């Protein structure tokens, strides 16, 4: 059989896995691979910092549901990628990271640009590999993709020593992956489904608490079916936004630290909490002993370690969210209970209570004349894109306002670093999303602090003609940290004042992008319209109210009913 080089085999294998785009940055240890990519039928997006490559691959995965791929060189290339890997890990995003490594005889010798990246990333990957022989290359890559996309998805790293990539091999035929020790549970236990269904039918104050797992499993249709047929109100985590239409009457929006009043009250008061693909994160639960304390809890999750980790669960269901919700819907179909048409009859008192909470304390902010309120900017972005844009975010207040005021009606439209909260995520993520969906508006809702963390990726966006839009909610502060200092540290703004920022309009120009600024409320809509109409990268610099806070807010360690309101 004809022999080919390791690098030829890698590229062939990536193509076999359906990969059309790689995000990466070259270096000595990956020269062979880059040479192979020079005329391969696979797009390589050259970022300006390896963190950006991993975030872009991550966002590509989040919006498409496919595996994203990043390619980094050894040593500093690999370590620069670590924040990106940890970000994907915390949010269970399927990506494969290929890193170059020094030749095997040099491993362990403190060779030039050698790091033990497998050791470094062990706690922040789903799995990782150091490939020792050329013959292992293809089987390892296949296994890595399988692990990344199956079960609870996550990042998988493959470390590729230079000599292993240079070696000659015969390309192995594709065979079904056999991993007897790794068998994620997709199908729910039918007995548990029946129990859950009975609990659902018996409850009078149910709440669906929905996380990113529903989006990862593409289970939104099944979720909508369940919620609407039985009139069950729905709240979503930051990662779950879009799993259920935000503008639907049954949606209570986000819950948790910056969740809506209605969502937090409903969870505190419900008699049945149906958690689907969510993990009871501390930002969601607040003080644990007060969380859903009157409720029986059903928890559907594909990862058994998520179940009963923080909160004791009454009816655990280990399964893929789509399979489990389908099973529940089927079970309900077979019972003589109200069909979808009669749903309006259920839970009338409960929904009335919730609607009262919604009316009493909607998400709101004080209008202050011509001063731009950041929430207003997000509302207008929502309006002017008909809620159809892909929104990426940085981290901080900007992220929370994006979550609160953009109405996500579809899944895979909100791309945010939830678990790790990585500043600098939004811009490279926007690039990854735009490359996946060139025809959609992609907007990074950014803070003036975070945007400076990966601002170099403006060059990447320009090079690949990715006309992403960046909306900086420019408050001159590391706003979210400032808000905590305001509330809990006596307004001692230690190192959170960012008054020495670049002129973002000039900065955009320097990169060959377009810079627009709004300092008055009346300028917001024209700026957004112009940005959306511009076929280039645009930075919108919104000079917003400097000391605006994100509300409601549950102070850390408090019960989620102890909300500070506007």
């Amino acid at each position, binding site marked *: 059989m004809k022999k080919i080089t390791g690098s030829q085999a890698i590229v062939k294998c990536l193509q076999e896995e359906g990969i059309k785009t790689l995000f990466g940055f070259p270096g000595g240890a990956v020269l062979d691979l880059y040479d192979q990519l020079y005329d391969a039928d696979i797009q390589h997006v050259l970022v300006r910092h390896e963190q950006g490559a991993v975030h872009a691959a991550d966002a590509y995965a989040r919006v498409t549901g496919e595996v994203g791929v990043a390619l980094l060189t050894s040593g500093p290339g690999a370590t620069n990628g670590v924040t990106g890997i940890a970000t994907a890990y915390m949010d269970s995003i399927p990506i494969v990271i290929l890193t170059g490594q020094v030749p095997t005889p040099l491993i362990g010798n403190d060779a030039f640009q050698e790091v033990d990246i*497998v*050791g470094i990333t*062990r*706690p922040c990957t*789903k*799995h990782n590999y*150091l490939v020792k022989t050329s013959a292992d290359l293809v089987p390892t890559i296949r296994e890595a993709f399988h*692990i990344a996309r199956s079960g609870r998805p996550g990042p998988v790293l493959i470390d590729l020593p230079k000599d292993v990539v240079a070696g000659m091999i015969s390309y192995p035929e594709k065979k079904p992956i056999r*991993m*007897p*020790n*790794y068998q994620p549970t997709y199908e729910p236990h039918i007995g548990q489904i029946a129990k859950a269904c009975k609990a659902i039918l018996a409850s009078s104050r149910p709440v669906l608490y929905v996380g990113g797992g529903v989006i990862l499993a593409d289970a939104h249709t099944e979720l909508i079916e369940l919620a609407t047929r039985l009139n069950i109100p729905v709240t979503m985590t930051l990662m779950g936004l879009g799993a259920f239409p935000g503008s639907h009457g049954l949606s209570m929006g986000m819950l948790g630290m910056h969740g809506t009043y209605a969502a937090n009250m409903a969870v505190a008061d419900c008699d049945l909490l149906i958690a689907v693909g969510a993990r009871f994160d501390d930002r969601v639960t607040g003080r644990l002993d007060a969380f859903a304390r009157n409720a029986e809890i059903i928890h559907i999750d594909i*990862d*058994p*370690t998520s179940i*009963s*980790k923080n909160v004791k669960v009454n009816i655990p269901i280990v399964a893929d969210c789509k399979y489990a919700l389908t099973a529940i819907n089927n079970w309900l179909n077979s019972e003589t209970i109200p069909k979808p048409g009669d749903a309006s009859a259920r839970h009338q008192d409960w929904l009335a209570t919730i609607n009262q909470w919604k009316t009493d304390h909607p998400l709101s902010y004080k209008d202050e004349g011509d001063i731009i309120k950041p929430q207003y900017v997000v509302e207008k972005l929502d309006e002017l894109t008909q809620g159809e844009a892909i929104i990426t975010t940085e981290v901080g207040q900007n992220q929370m306002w994006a979550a609160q005021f953009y109405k996500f009606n579809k899944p895979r439209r909100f791309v945010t670093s939830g678990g790790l909260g990585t500043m600098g995520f939004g811009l490279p993520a926007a690039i990854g999303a735009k490359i996946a969906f060139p025809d959609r508006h992609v907007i990074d809702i950014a803070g003036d602090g975070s945007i400076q963390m990966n601002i170099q990726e403006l060059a990447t966006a320009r090079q690949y003609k990715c006309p992403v839009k960046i909306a900086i909610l420019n408050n001159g502060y590391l706003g979210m940290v400032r808000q905590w200092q305001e509330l809990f540290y006596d307004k001692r703004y230690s190192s959170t004042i960012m008054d020495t920022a670049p002129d973002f309009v000039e900065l955009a120009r320097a990169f060959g992008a377009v810079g627009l600024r709004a300092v008055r409320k009346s300028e917001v809509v024209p700026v957004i319209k112009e940005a959306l109409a511009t076929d280039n990268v645009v930075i919108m610099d919104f000079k917003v109210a400097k000391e605006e806070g994100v509300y409601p807010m549950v102070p850390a360690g408090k019960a989620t009913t102890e909300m500070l309101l506007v």
Partner: protein
Amino acid sequence: MKHTISVLLQNRPGVLSRVTGLFSGRGFNIESLCVAETLESDVSCLTLVTTGDNFIIEQITKQLHKLIDVIKVTDISDKEYVEREMVLLRVKADANTRAEVLRVVDIFRGKVVDVSPKSYAVEITGSASKIQAVIDILRPLGIKEIVRTGTIAMARANKG
């Protein structure tokens, strides 16, 4: 509560650090850990002793199971099981204590494995509590060095 957990693993480089990293990263406790090949050279058996309430032990077993290289996890403290540990002790043995050391070693069915003019090295095998008992008795006589293997354990066969 003390639990003895038996884990079958793929015998691959880095597997052990995946296990220990899991414990340190999540703040679980390891009291002892023992690992070696099984009959199949590509599979290792790891026995670890840990403490925690049921909540924690459940997390530990689930988290171990989640590691890709882990084949099987059994909390053998749930079952009838035998456990053994071995200890090597160097005990002071001069004219005054020599006889007493030998007597203790004999009672615990140990063996003297090395002799020098001033000390005996002894080997004792048994459950963790037996090992502790020997140590407590020999300590006043003068233990100069101690090496313990950590516990290995095996569930008893089903009766009948």
